């Protein structure tokens, strides 16, 4: 939900974020005798917290790519420098069996193109818990279903994650739900049923799908013989009916595997056919993911995931789109007319412009905790590979959390591939990012 506030309010939030970041000291504690005043941590009915961050990004644009041409054919440039400030507030009020929880986020940025800002309510929901077995929720809430780290094929009512930042908060949807839990002794240790009603009306969850529909989603969770298992179903008029199952288990104390499978019925999709014409198709599709997490004795964590999206575009369908943009560029150069660019932009908005729109991907993340005896220092690397066209993005990064409540992250991302491949045709050739975050 976008707050109808003025630019002044957003600017003030940005200013606050900057103030918090620059005027609070890095509070490492001096050595000395330890003490523990437990009264300081007594539960309070109202609690709040959050973080403020500033981020600097330097982007080298790939001036030969399809998405560069689409976005900058009227305003050519080769680099973008961007400064962003953000403030995220989280709060909760508890009384009796009820709790009201919320997450607010405001962001403002200035780059070579201009100023942008936003203020959003990510979450605002009332939760009632009459017994440990039952919880009822109503309001705006984030749902994150599935076991995958980078992708979640069974996340039928989730917003898609950014695989480069899968742990970042996302905006929720308005809905109402009930959660029932029951524990047992024996091989079946836990059973939990989560049901959610998610309406889509004018002004409510409009970006979820077709309006004027009430949608239902349910998740049945079981912990059976040390394995997490979920069965998921979604039904409603806003999106097609879909079914899913996922699992996660530890094969050893340092080795976890997980997987998801989803079957989506009656998907409607626009794609570029062999003739180059925009064509509609309706089909069923399978999406699945298999992944593992492995930790070595030296604290090196590896996450690998294979993701198949049966509803994605094939390599040739993507190539046709990139060819269309190349033709639009030629048309503009030769005739000064940009009608093909307008067509390509419309098609881009129908799905070709979304992230990871192909069919088969490999995700690889590796990080080393506390190398060279440097506590709280975590260098790592994230790679995403499109297995169909062999293009990829690679992001080495360094994270430092040694100052209490501060997080510093330096990341460099570069993309590569042959012409007319997914990552080669993205807007960026590479990006350098430095982010400082302060939690309060």
């Amino acid at each position, binding site marked *: 939900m976008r707050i109808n506030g003025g630019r002044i309010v957003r600017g003030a939030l940005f200013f606050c974020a900057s103030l918090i970041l620059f005027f609070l000291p890095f509070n*490492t*504690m*001096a*050595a000395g005798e*330890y003490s*523990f005043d*437990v009264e300081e*941590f*007594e539960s309070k009915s109202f609690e709040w*917290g959050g*973080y403020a961050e500033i981020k600097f990004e330097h982007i080298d644009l790939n001036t030969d790519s399809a998405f560069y041409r689409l976005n900058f054919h009227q305003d050519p440039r080769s680099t973008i420098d961007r400064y962003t400030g953000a403030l995220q507030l*989280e709060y*909760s009020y*508890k009384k009796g069996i009820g*709790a009201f929880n919320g997450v607010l986020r405001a962001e403002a940025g200035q780059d070579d193109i201009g100023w942008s800002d936003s203020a959003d309510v990510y979450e605002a929901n009332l*939760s009632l*818990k009459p*017994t*440990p*077995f039952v*919880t009822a929720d109503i309001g705006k809430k*984030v*749902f*994150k*279903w599935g076991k995958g*780290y980078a992708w979640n094929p069974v996340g039928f009512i989730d917003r898609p994650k950014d695989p480069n930042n*899968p*742990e970042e908060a996302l905006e929720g949807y308005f809905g109402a739900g009930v*959660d029932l*839990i029951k*524990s047992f002794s024996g091989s079946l*240790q*836990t059973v*939990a049923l989560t049901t959610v009603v998610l309406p889509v009306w004018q002004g409510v969850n409009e970006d979820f799908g077709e309006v004027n529909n009430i949608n239902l989603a349910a998740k049945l*969770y079981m*912990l059976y013989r*040390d394995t*997490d298992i979920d069965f998921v179903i979604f039904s409603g008029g806003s999106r097609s009916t879909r079914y899913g199952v996922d699992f*996660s*288990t*530890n094969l*050893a*104390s*340092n*080795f*976890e595997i*997980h997987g998801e499978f989803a079957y989506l019925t009656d998907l409607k999709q626009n794609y570029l056919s062999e003739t180059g014409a925009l064509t509609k198709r309706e089909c069923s599709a399978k999406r699945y993911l298999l992944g593992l997490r492995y*930790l070595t*004795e030296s*604290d090196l*964590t590896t996450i690998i995931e294979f993701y198949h999206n049966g509803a994605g575009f094939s390599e040739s369908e993507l190539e046709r789109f990139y060819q269309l943009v190349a033709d639009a560029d030629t048309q503009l150069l030769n005739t000064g007319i940009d009608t093909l660019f307008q067509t390509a932009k419309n098609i881009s908005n129908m799905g070709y412009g979304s992230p990871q729109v192909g069919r088969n991907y490999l995700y690889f993340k590796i990080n080393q*905790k*506390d190398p060279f*005896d440097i*506590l709280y220092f975590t260098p790592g690397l994230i790679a995403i590979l499109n297995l169909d066209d062999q293009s990829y993005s690679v992001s080495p990064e360094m994270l430092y*959390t040694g100052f*209490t*409540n501060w997080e510093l992250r330096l990341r460099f991302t570069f993309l590569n591939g042959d012409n007319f491949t997914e990552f080669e045709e993205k807007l960026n050739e590479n990006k350098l990012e430095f982010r400082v975050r302060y*939690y*309060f």
Partner: protein
Amino acid sequence: MIYGKVLSKPSKVFFNFLVQMTLIMLLVIPAAALDGNEILLQVDRNLQPESYEMYRKLINIEPAGSKKEYVLYTVKKGQDKMVALFLSPASEKGRATLRLGDNMWLYIPSVGKPLRITSLQSVVGGVFNNSDILRIDYSAEYNAAMIEETADKFILDCKAKTATVAYDRLTMVVDKETMVPLTIECYAASGMLIKTLYYKELKDFGDGLRRPSVLETDSPLYKGYKSVMLYAKINKKDLADEVFTLNYLPRVDELR
């Protein structure tokens, strides 16, 4: 007395001797008669009630002396169910870890769903790993054999029951008087010493619970680093089994 009417005088003397000796044996030798597993069970019960809540502060101390502190609210039920919720610092607040036997999960509010973690990882960095932070009963994970007994100590050799336990073997020194551990050396299957735990500063937590209030650890793998755990407010608490489920993790704070 009944025997006075039916036994002769020498028999009475002999019977009295037998009774007195039996009483002396019962009073003086009970601890010595315990085997390793029974001692381990007593250690567990003396360290914590079966079902309880408590507050802990974890302090990681670097060689240069700088510290990083975490405060956790913890609830435990039975031998192997435990939840720990981070209350501080702000960057970790709301994170919760769940342990059910060999299974461990970490819930991060921004991630929104619990992720499986392993016992050897550490959610706080430093020398304590997840199995130290989510410490269930020692007797749930180890079989113990007594390898030495001195005037005031038992020394136990504890062998992990399964390969999924974080430390393959423990050498535990138990104080005879209080029946709580003094030191525990933790070894990998290869025989390598991973860390040493030092239980210190006995404190009366009320309700008959008298146990160490400080746990220190160091490790040859983290030379110069030290981690400390301070215990407070250990109270018996009745908890539903459903508290120890993934769906409950976002609501653990409501137990306080």
